[in-house]
């Protein structure tokens, strides 16, 4: 193994800055590959060297595996950190790095393949006894559907086998709703996809998105850093994350953590990963959804309550070292909340709002952390993700963390582009958030609808 001295950052934005800072803390040099739109970015300034990898569109720069590898090798790097998004979960990129003599900062290509493919991940979960959302195979006849319905129980979702995007989907609440729902779902599925077969899936009325952070090394070390609750979502996009989850029973938390470790162990997982579950608030049960085989956007909330630097651990693992912490050394202290600051207009259906940031006055404080690549005068390019920062606070309790976040948001001034800050202010002040009653459908089903009524 080559000694790790220089890391290539194959990403942009706040995560590039995050990776560079972790490298600096470990005494590692950094080279960042930037598109033409990011030549003047904070990441480009902070790295020891920045090299232009192509034009602004990601398909011509950040998604060009062979260009990134040529750049990494040509600048004498030994490792490539893919961040999140872009090529971070492409097994092909992992393999290309390895074949080119570069260490991919992340799990093996086999682990990415096994867990990155949703069907494969569900199969593995079932094999080792990790609960998955109860459902049926594709069904043809009405009697089969009835049998599956009584096995899964009401309410359930009726979905088109060939479908997607909610077409042919019905919520069936009771046995007498089944026949008409099935008839219309089959007709719609036949019309839309030319295939009338359907399958059943348990409908979780009040669901929370809860995920477990895992970390593994190449020496058999595998630990979990507790859970994050990412239920404040809009169109499956997480907006606010917190750790720990405010309403999970300790016994369930332990089971969930053990399930996450079992899955990670099964695929020989190394580096940082996240095992996502849906938690049924009414039944108090959890089901495996999928695993993200990379650093997660919301990793800072876990760092704030554990004191463990997840990116530094990833780099240690990539250098062939052991994790710096053992499971019995992991302790949860307090509560952390993260708000994603996106250049979007919450008053206008969250429409992207790129452009020049004419004023940037972020909050500061002992328990406030801001992960960002943004600054006054920064031009938010229209080519990429709209996230321009992550505001994170820690408190001794959830109530204190909520107060601190509300105060931090109140003092956060951004002008020139619209941001999600006003949205966060309202959510943090909302009774449902304060009382921890948020489900994954809350933003769209309750909050935004309530706002529309009030307007």
């Amino acid at each position: 193994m080559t000694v790790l001295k220089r890391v290539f950052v194959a990403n942009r934005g706040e995560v590039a800055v995050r990776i560079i800072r972790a490298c600096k803390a470990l005494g590692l040099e950094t080279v960042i590959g930037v598109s033409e739109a990011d030549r003047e970015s904070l990441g480009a300034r902070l790295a020891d060297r920045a090299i232009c990898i192509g034009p602004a569109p990601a398909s011509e720069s950040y998604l060009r595996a062979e260009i990134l590898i040529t750049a990494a090798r040509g600048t004498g790097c030994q490792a490539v950190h893919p961040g999140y998004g872009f090529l971070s979960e492409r097994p092909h990129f992992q393999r290309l790095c390895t074949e080119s003599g570069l260490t991919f900062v992340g799990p093996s290509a086999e682990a990415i393949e096994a867990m990155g493919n949703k069907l494969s991940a569900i199969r593995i979960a079932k094999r080792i006894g990790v609960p998955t959302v109860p459902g049926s195979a594709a069904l043809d006849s009405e009697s089969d559907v009835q049998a599956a319905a009584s096995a899964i129980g009401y309410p359930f979702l009726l979905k088109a086998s060939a479908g997607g995007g909610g077409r042919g989907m019905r919520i069936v609440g009771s046995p007498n709703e089944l026949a008409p729902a099935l008839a219309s779902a089959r007709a719609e599925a036949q019309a839309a996809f030319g295939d009338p077969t359907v399958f059943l899936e348990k409908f979780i009325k009040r669901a929370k998105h809860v995920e477990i952070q895992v970390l593994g090394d190449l020496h058999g070390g595998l630990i979990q850093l507790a859970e994050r609750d990412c239920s404040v979502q809009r169109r499956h996009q997480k907006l606010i994350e917190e750790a720990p989850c405010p309403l999970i029973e300790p016994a369930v938390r332990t089971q969930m953590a053990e399930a996450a470790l079992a899955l990670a162990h099964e695929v020989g997982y190394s580096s940082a990963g996240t095992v996502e579950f849906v938690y049924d608030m009414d039944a108090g049960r959890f089901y495996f959804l999928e695993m993200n085989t990379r650093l997660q956007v919301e990793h800072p909330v876990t760092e704030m309550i554990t004191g463990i630097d997840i990116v530094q651990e990833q780099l240690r693992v990539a250098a062939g070292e052991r994790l710096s912490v053992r499971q019995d050394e992991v302790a949860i202290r307090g509560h952390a909340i993260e708000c994603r600051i996106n250049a979007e207009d919450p008053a206008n259906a969250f429409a992207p709002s790129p452009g020049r940031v004419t004023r940037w006055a972020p909050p500061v404080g002992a328990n406030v952390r801001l992960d960002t690549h943004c600054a006054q005068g920064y031009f938010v390019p229209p080519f990429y993700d709209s996230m321009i920062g992550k505001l994170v606070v820690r408190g001794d309790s959830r109530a204190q963390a909520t107060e601190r976040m509300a105060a931090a948001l109140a003092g956060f001034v951004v002008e020139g582009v619209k941001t999600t800050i006003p949205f966060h202010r309202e959510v943090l002040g909302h009774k449902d958030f304060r009382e921890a009653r948020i489900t994954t459908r809350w933003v769209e089903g309750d909050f935004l609808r309530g706002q529309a009524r009030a307007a």
Partner: protein
Amino acid sequence: MSEQNVQELAYFLTYRDVVEILRLVNESPHLVALELQLGDLKVNVSRAAGELTAPTAPTVFGSPSAVAAESVRIEEEQCEENEVAAGVQTGSELVAVRAPMLGTFYRAPGPGEPPYVEPGELVEADDPIGLIDVMKLFSQIPAGVAGRVVEIVAQNGALVEHGQPLVLIEPLPDTE
């Protein structure tokens, strides 16, 4: 890093290491010259008239002033600007043929073969001026403009970034 002892000669000399070496040399008034070779990389430092120079290591350092600033990245950018500036200083309207992609630049179609172009030669817009290699995928780079080759600014076999000037050409109305 358990295999470190087996691979002890695989040590990689970094920019920061070289800066540190030069700093140590600079702080040692009695040291006249230093030659250091690690694998393929050779650093040769000699002191003349009390000033620090690095004459035989142009691939690592261009100018001692940049070393003093301890910022190799800035130094390299300066290099690039100097090269462009040098072209501009000739007073004529030079056109830079820029790398259309990041990759390894080669002046010749293959090892041992003559370069596509040499300074002073005339080229048509379609004539290749070099190759860029991206993981063994070679692309010919056309001059893009008819004229006289003034300078080859990119080094043969070196990594060039997207948009980096490769060759400077003095456009001529019609070379036919």
